[in-house]
C-alpha cells in the first residue's frame, strides 16, 4: 500500500486509528438524536470538512495520494476542536479524533503550510510577551488594580488567571478573586504567569510549548503551590490534559476548574447567598471543560445552589452541547464563521426562553457575547463567576 511515513510527522503516531475510520458518518450527528454535531460539516458540507474527512485526508497524506496544500490547511484548521465527534463516533478510534486533527495541524506547521495567518500572530506574541494578545507582559495583573488580592510570596492555592481573563475578559478574573476573598480562601495570583500554551497546542504551533510549560511549572513550584485553580476552560484543559503529555514533573499538583473548587464549598454549605427573585438561566458547556475534561455536573451544582435560579437545559447539553465556535483557533482564523456557530447557540438558548445564558470560560463569553450583539438578541450573557459573585455575600 506504500505508506509514506516519516518519524518527524505527528500523524504517524495515529496510523492505526486513522485506518479504523470507514467514514460511516456517525461522527456527523448526535448519536441517536440526529441533530448536527459538527460545526465544520454544517458550514462547509463537503466530506473533507467532517471529522471522518479530515481523518481520510491524513490517510491520503500517509499514502502519498495527496500533497500538503493551502487548501488542506484551510480544511484542517476549519475545526473548533470541540470534540463532539469524539462522543458521537462509535468506533474504537473515537477518543483520538481531535488528537489526529491536532497532529495534522502540527505537521502543517512543521511543513510551512500552517497555521492560518491570524493564528501565527499568537506564537509571535507569546514569544515576545508570553500572551497571544500582543499585550505587555508587565500588564498581566493590571485587572487587579483596585482589588484586594493577597500580596504574599507563597500559598498552597494559585489562581491561574489565563491570558484571556487577564487581558480581554477581565471581569472573570475580578469576580473570581472577589469570590475567593468572600470565601476566605488563602490563595495567590502571580504576575509572572505565562500563557498556558493552549492557543499554540490547538493550532499546531508546538515550538514554544515546552518552554511555557517549564516556566509555569517552575513558577507553581517556586510559590509552594499544591492546587492550581483556573476560571478558564481552555487553561484548565491544557494544564490538566496536555501538561502531563509534556512533563512528568507535575508531582501531584492538583488542577481544578473554579466550578470544581466552588462545588466543594457548596457541598459543605459554606456559601452564603443573598435573597433573590426567580430567574431562568441556561448553561452552555464549554467544550474544553465538558467533552475534553468531563466536567458537566459541577457547574450545574453551583448554579442549582443559587436561590431563585431556575436552571433550564438547552436541547443539546452536556456531552452533546453545540460548540460556541471560539476554540481550536477558529475565532482567530475564521472570525465570521465563529460568530455564526455561536449564533446557533444563542438561538437555542432563546428557544427555551432563558433570561441569562451562562458558561464557565472567557473564550465562550467573548464569542457568545459577539453573537448576542450580532443577532441583536435580548438574552444576557454572564459567566458563572460573574453570576455567582452577584448573589453571594
Amino acid at each position, binding site marked *: 500500500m506504500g505508506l509514506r511515513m516519516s518519524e518527524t510527522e505527528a500523524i504517524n503516531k495515529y496510523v492505526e486509528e486513522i485506518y479504523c475510520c470507514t467514514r460511516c458518518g456517525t461522527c456527523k450527528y448526535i448519536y441517536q438524536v440526529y441533530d448536527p454535531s459538527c460545526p465544520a460539516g454544517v458550514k462547509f458540507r463537503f466530506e473533507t470538512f467532517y471529522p471522518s474527512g479530515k481523518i481520510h485526508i491524513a490517510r491520503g497524506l500517509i499514502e502519498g*495520494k495527496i500533497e500538503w496544500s493551502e487548501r488542506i490547511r484551510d480544511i484542517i484548521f476549519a475545526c473548533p476542536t470541540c470534540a463532539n465527534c469524539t462522543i458521537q463516533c*462509535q468506533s474504537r478510534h473515537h477518543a483520538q479524533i481531535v488528537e489526529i486533527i491536532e497532529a495534522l495541524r502540527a505537521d502543517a506547521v512543521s511543513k510551512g503550510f500552517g497555521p492560518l495567518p491570524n493564528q501565527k500572530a499568537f506564537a509571535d506574541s507569546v514569544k515576545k510577551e508570553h500572551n497571544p494578545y500582543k499585550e505587555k507582559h508587565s500588564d498581566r495583573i493590571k485587572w487587579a488594580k483596585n482589588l484586594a488580592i493577597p500580596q504574599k510570596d507563597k500559598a498552597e492555592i494559585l489562581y491561574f488567571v489565563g491570558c484571556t481573563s487577564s487581558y480581554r475578559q477581565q471581569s472573570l478574573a475580578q469576580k473570581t478573586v472577589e469570590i475567593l476573598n468572600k470565601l476566605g480562601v488563602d490563595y495567590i495570583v502571580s504576575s509572572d504567569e505565562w500563557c498556558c500554551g493552549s492557543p499554540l497546542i490547538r493550532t499546531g504551533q508546538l515550538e514554544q510549548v515546552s518552554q511555557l510549560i517549564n516556566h509555569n511549572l517552575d513558577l507553581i513550584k517556586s510559590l509552594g503551590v499544591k492546587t492550581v485553580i483556573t476560571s478558564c476552560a481552555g487553561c484548565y484543559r491544557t494544564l490538566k490534559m496536555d501538561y502531563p503529555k509534556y512533563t512528568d514533573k507535575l508531582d501531584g499538583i492538583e488542577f481544578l476548574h473554579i466550578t470544581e473548587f466552588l462545588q466543594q464549598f457548596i457541598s459543605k454549605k459554606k456559601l452564603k447567598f443573598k435573597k433573590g427573585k426567580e430567574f431562568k438561566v441556561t448553561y452552555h458547556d464549554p467544550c474544553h471543560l465538558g467533552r475534553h475534561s468531563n466536567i458537566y455536573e459541577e457547574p450545574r451544582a453551583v448554579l442549582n445552589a443559587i436561590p431563585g435560579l431556575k436552571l433550564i437545559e438547552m436541547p443539546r447539553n452536556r456531552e452533546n452541547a453545540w460548540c460556541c465556535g471560539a476554540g481550536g483557533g477558529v475565532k482567530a482564523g475564521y472570525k465570521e464563521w465563529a460568530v455564526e456557530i455561536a449564533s446557533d447557540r444563542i438561538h437555542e438558548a432563546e428557544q427555551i426562553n432563558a433570561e441569562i445564558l451562562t458558561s464557565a470560560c472567557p473564550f465562550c463569553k467573548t464569542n457568545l457575547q459577539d453573537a448576542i450583539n450580532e443577532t441583536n438578541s435580548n438574552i444576557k450573557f454572564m459567566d458563572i463567576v460573574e453570576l455567582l459573585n452577584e448573589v453571594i455575600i
Partner: protein
Amino acid sequence: MKKLVGCDKLLESSEKHDIIKESLIKIVGEQWYSDFPEELLIYSYDMTENDPSLPEFVVMPRTSEEIQKILKFANETKTPVVPFISGNNVGGLTIPLKGGIVVDLKRMDSILHFNEDDMYVIIEPGVTFGHLHAFLEKTNYRYCYPFAPPFTSVIANALLDGLNNLSLRHGSMNEWINGIEAILPNGDLVKIGTCCAWGDNYDLWWSRNPMPDLLGLFTSWQGMTGIVTKMAVQVWPRRPIRDWRIVLSFNVEETYKFVKTLTHLEILNDILFMSIETVKMIAGVPYGKAKYLEGEPRWVCLLDFSANTKLEYEAKLDMINTAFKKLKEVDPKANMTNLDVMEKFYGKKVGDIKNLPVTIGPMLEYGGLTWMGTYMTTKTEAVVNGIKTAFDLIDKYRFEKCLYSRSMKGHHYFAFRFLLRFSKLQEGETERMQKLQEELFNSLFELGAFPYKTPARFAKQILKRADPNWVNLLKTIKSTIDPNGIMNPGRWGLE
C-alpha cells in the same frame, strides 16, 4: 463562456476541464463546487474492497432545478455523472469508474411531507434513516431500519433494494416506494406513480398503481438512468408492544426449517438467521477473533415481533414457544432466551441489534467492511449448501464466518449475506478479500443466489451468464434513456 459541445477532441483536456468547471460553478455556485485533489480522493473509494477511481469534479446542488442543469450540461458534453449521498457507501457503487462529476446530494435533506392518512413520507435524497426515525418518533408511525449506521440515505437504500427489519413483512425497500421525482440524463424532470398526475400536490403521491410501473427504470439501476430527487416512502403504524426472542441452536438444517415454520405463521416483523460469529462481532470481539468454539451454539435466530394488545402478544409468544418446542425435539440442546440474557452473557452491545438504526462500532472500525449480499431461493437445500460453501471459502481466505441473513416478504425469498470485516492497513488484505468475493460470487450464483448492490465486476459476469434477450432489453433501455452513457458509466457491465 466557451461552449463545449460533444466530446470535443480538439480541446486540450485542461481547457475542457476549465470549461466544465466554469459551467458547474455557474449552476451551483463556487461554494458548492470542488476539484481539489483531497476532495476528489475522498469520493474515489468506499469502505469495501472495490478498486478506487477518481472523479474530476464534485458539486453539491440544493434543488432539482440545479440537477436538471447539471445533467443537461453533462449530457451535452458527454461527461460522466455519479450520484452520491451520505458517504456511507458499499459495493463501490459511487466510485466514479469513468471519472466525471460526482453529484453529492447531501444538501437536499428535507422531509417534505407526511401524509398520515395514506401513511407515507416524501423525502429528499439527503434524508437518512436516523433523521426519518427522529421525525417519525413524534408520530405513531414507523419506518424500517437496516443493519447500518443511522446516517445512510433512505432513498439510496430504497433504490438499491435494501433489506431491513420489516423485510419479512414487506420485502425489499423498493416495494415500499409510492412514487418518485427523477431527473433524466437529458435534464427532463419526470414523476412516477400517482404523482405523475398530481405532482405538485404532495397529498396525492399515494401509490404507483394502477398504471404502467416505471419505477423499475430506476430501482437497482445503480444511478445509471437518472438522479432521484424526491421519493414517497410508505410508513406503518407503530404497535405498542414489541419484543424479541433469541434462539441458540446447533443444527443448521433444523434451525432453517424452524425459521421457515415461523415465517409461515405470519406473526413476526423480522427474523434474522445468523452464525455465532456475527453475534460475537456485534458484541465487540476484535477483528480476527470472532470464531466459533467447539461446544457452543452454532446458530442464532433473532425473532422480532409486536402486538396491539397483551392478548395478541401472548398468543404470538405461545405460537413461537410451540415452534421452538418442535425445534427442540430435533435439536435437543437448542435454547430460547431474550435479549436481556444475551446482553448479560455477551455484553451490552448485543442489545443494539434491537435499537436500529445503530452504528455497530466493532463492525466498522477496521477500515474495511464488505459483504457478499445476495437474494436467493428459500429452498432448504440451497440455503444449507450455500452456508457450507461460503464457510469453506471464508475459511480458505482466513476471514470471519459472519452470516447475517433474513427471510424476505413472508419467506417468498431469502436474503443471504455474509458480513466481512477486513483491515485496509494490512498489506495484501484488500486483495485477499477481492479473491474471496470473486469465489463467493461464483459459487453462490451457481446455487441460485443473485447479488444485490452488485459491484461492477460481478455485474459484468452476470451479464455473461444471463439470458441474452434480458441483456439486450437492459441495454436498449439504458441507451434509450441515456444515449450518451453519462449516468454512472461502467455499472451493470454497461458502458
